[in-house]
């Protein structure tokens, strides 16, 4: 059987979490069809990406030691098709790309890049920044990414993972176009299964009986919810460490609470930004068309939707912020109550352990021994005697 590696390197916000969740939960079925998705935890390939690219990530990197080499070894040892997937691979430098491809051995590498129009990607990336502790306003974010110098941390990261032709230049330079596969995200309002159909075509998963239930997604937020989260960040980012921020703000508030506001206005682009984003996408489509890559979907999807009404998240009023703010307070109170219950249970267990210990110490012989030890510990000679006794008894 021919050895192939399907290397899915991005882009962020193109349904990658869903794809990776399906692949992770269906590893057994995939193996039965000679397809390997080597992951012992959901974020295994994320850790491999951190390792490959030397990216510290709020402390998570300590779990990434050697992750890329382990992943590459499993891929090299597999006889059939292997899949590697994480969106932050998109940021790899040419040197890192060369190292990655070299470490995959002699397998036939196919690059997969899932892509979406900038009209939807820009608001989504701002939201993602806000969900990662940033309190940059939407207007400033747009100014930052439109700055041709790309001198800021946000600007350089955004283009490194979203500029499709550049990602393809870095990852696909050594591959023939027939081994580069683009998966375009369908337009808003398309059938929910369409993106999966495109993924499964690119990955050769058509016809497999996979459990496609969406257990883990990266849901988007509405305008007031994102605005609220940004306001919260202004207060808490400097006083809440990343290990606390992740479960309390990102997971509890953003993903589990605020993302439920499905009726809220969705974030888009102002007319001027919209036109700029579409022009840029058109120039990209032109480049990609000329290169002759394999496309699942249509490159026309990359132009993006027509301009709609624009709700500016930077001017959200208190009235608009109040409902999600109350939802946030409720969620935090419920979480506080849950944590109090956990704390109470732990105290109870500690009390029981202490009671047990005290009962064991109630015997007269223990009391006499304790008194002798306490007296001896008060002088150097006594301490020496005790040490000698303990050594003799093999207690040290």
């Amino acid at each position, binding site marked *: 059987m021919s050895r192939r590696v399907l290397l899915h390197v991005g882009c962020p916000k193109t349904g990658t979490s869903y794809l990776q969740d399906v692949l992770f939960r269906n590893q057994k079925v995939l193996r039965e069809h000679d397809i390997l998705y080597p992951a012992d935890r959901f974020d295994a390939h994320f850790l491999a990406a*951190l*390792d490959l*690219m*030397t*990216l*510290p990530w709020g*402390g998570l*990197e*300590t779990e*990434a*030691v050697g992750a890329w080499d382990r992943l590459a070894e499993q891929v090299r040892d597999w006889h059939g098709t292997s899949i590697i997937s994480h969106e932050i691979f998109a*940021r790899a*430098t*040419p*040197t*890192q*790309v*060369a*190292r990655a491809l070299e470490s995959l051995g002699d397998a036939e590498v196919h690059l997969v890049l899932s892509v979406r129009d900038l009209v939807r990607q820009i608001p989504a990336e701002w939201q993602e920044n806000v969900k990662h502790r940033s309190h940059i306003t939407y207007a400033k974010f747009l100014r930052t990414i439109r700055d*041709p*110098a*790309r001198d800021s*941390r946000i600007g*350089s*990261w955004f*283009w*490194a993972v979203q*500029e499709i*032709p*550049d990602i393809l*230049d*870095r990852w696909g330079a050594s591959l023939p176009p027939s081994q580069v596969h683009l998966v375009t995200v369908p337009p808003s309002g398309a059938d929910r299964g369409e993106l999966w159909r495109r993924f499964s075509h690119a990955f050769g998963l058509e016809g497999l009986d996979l459990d496609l239930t969406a257990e883990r997604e990266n849901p988007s937020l509405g305008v007031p919810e994102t605005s609220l989260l940004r306001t919260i960040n202004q207060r808490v980012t*400097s*006083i809440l*460490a990343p290990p606390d921020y992740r479960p309390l703000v990102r997971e509890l508030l953003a993903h589990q609470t605020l993302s439920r506001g499905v009726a809220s206005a969705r974030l888009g682009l102002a007319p001027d930004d919209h036109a700029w984003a579409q022009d840029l996408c058109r120039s990209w489509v032109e480049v990609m068309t000329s290169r002759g890559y394999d496309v699942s979907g249509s490159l026309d999807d990359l132009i993006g939707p027509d301009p709609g009404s624009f709700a500016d998240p930077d001017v959200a009023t208190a009235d608009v912020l109040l409902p999600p703010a109350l939802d946030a307070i409720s969620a935090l109170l419920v979480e506080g109550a849950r944590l109090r219950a956990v704390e109470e249970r732990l105290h109870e267990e500690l009390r029981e352990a202490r009671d047990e210990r005290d009962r064991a110490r109630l015997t007269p012989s223990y009391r006499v021994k304790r008194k002798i*030890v*306490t007296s001896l*510990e008060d002088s*150097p*000679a006594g*301490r*020496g005697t*005790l*040490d*000698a006794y303990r050594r003799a008894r093999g207690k040290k």
Partner: protein
Amino acid sequence: MTTTSPQSAGPGAVGRAHGWVAHLRDGGTTPWLAWTGEADPSTARPLPGAQQLELLRRLNLASGSSAQPRGDHGRDRTRLADRVLATPAAGRGKADLPLVGLPHHGFGAVPVDPATVGPHELLRVASVLLADDLVALGADPVTTTWAKPWRRRFRLVGDPVVTVALREHLAARGRPEGGPRPFVVAVGRPLDELLAHTWTQRCFETGATPWAEWLRFWRERDQLPDRADLVASVRRWRGHRPFVRVVTDLDRLPRQVGVRSVPAVRVPGADQAELARRIAAVVGLRVPAHERPGLMRTLQQRIPDSTVAPVVVPDRERDWVAASAARTVRGVTRAGYSVVGDLADLAPHAAASMASGPAGPDDQQVLDLAIRMVVDPGWRAGSARTTERQVER
């Protein structure tokens, strides 16, 4: 050799870039914009970023090398050059930057003149190089010996720079920390210095956020970090009043741990701490978590001397520091702990606020130190040094 300037992006520009890479690999120091030579690009690997290339040029400048390799020295230099060129820049900053003057497709990062790449960017590469050096070196062994039965039982808390060094020194002399009913010895000092030492020591352990950000975190919480909070530290070890000593006079510290004297403790400078902070983040990606403390301890012992002063608390944080120090004094007084020295010494140094210069580390100074460490591998040779260093009693 041609006379074409790299500023013009023609078909030969890629050849010139590869020629410049070869020149730097050979120890050359010519800036990119002044470079006119060429090389065949057909067999070359991808061009490294401007950060790697400029760092290599600065390393060549620092080592005072000529463009001609000579014997083992030349081979070592080429090995080092290859490492530099293959080393990524750590963190989420800019990816590898292309050189100005090369053909540009209109996509990707904006090309730059490497000479204009700032020290912050160069440090991102240098810290990875040094972290890899440290990992290759391995942790120095910890010296321990039989515990003396008659030793005084103690538990050290407070100033981490002092307690970490002292704990290790005493363990090597048969006086390990702990044991039944120990005296809890809290090493205090002016709170501004205590905070600076706490951050500094943390840089040499697991790493930390930058100094200003770290201070802001605690100030906005109106809390003290664990090791700078003397009262909470004593309580954590369940120290009962007769068994607690708060030491503010460091000359009297040895008696509290049962010895006549202790060696002077070196307080790392701002540049050393900042470099360690950056290295610690990369070491965290290179070795399992339990190996990092030993490696960072080794770095702390071996890092070359520096004349740069330790970090100081900036003026904008001093009111909060003064209030926190007053709270600590009240806490110690109310708890009735014995004080060795004067509790007034816990107040921040008024004079420090007049200190000139920046409160935090300067990137250029940090880069200078990093370059010195890459060029001169002396810090990696032999066992940990015991030479005289910047000391503090």
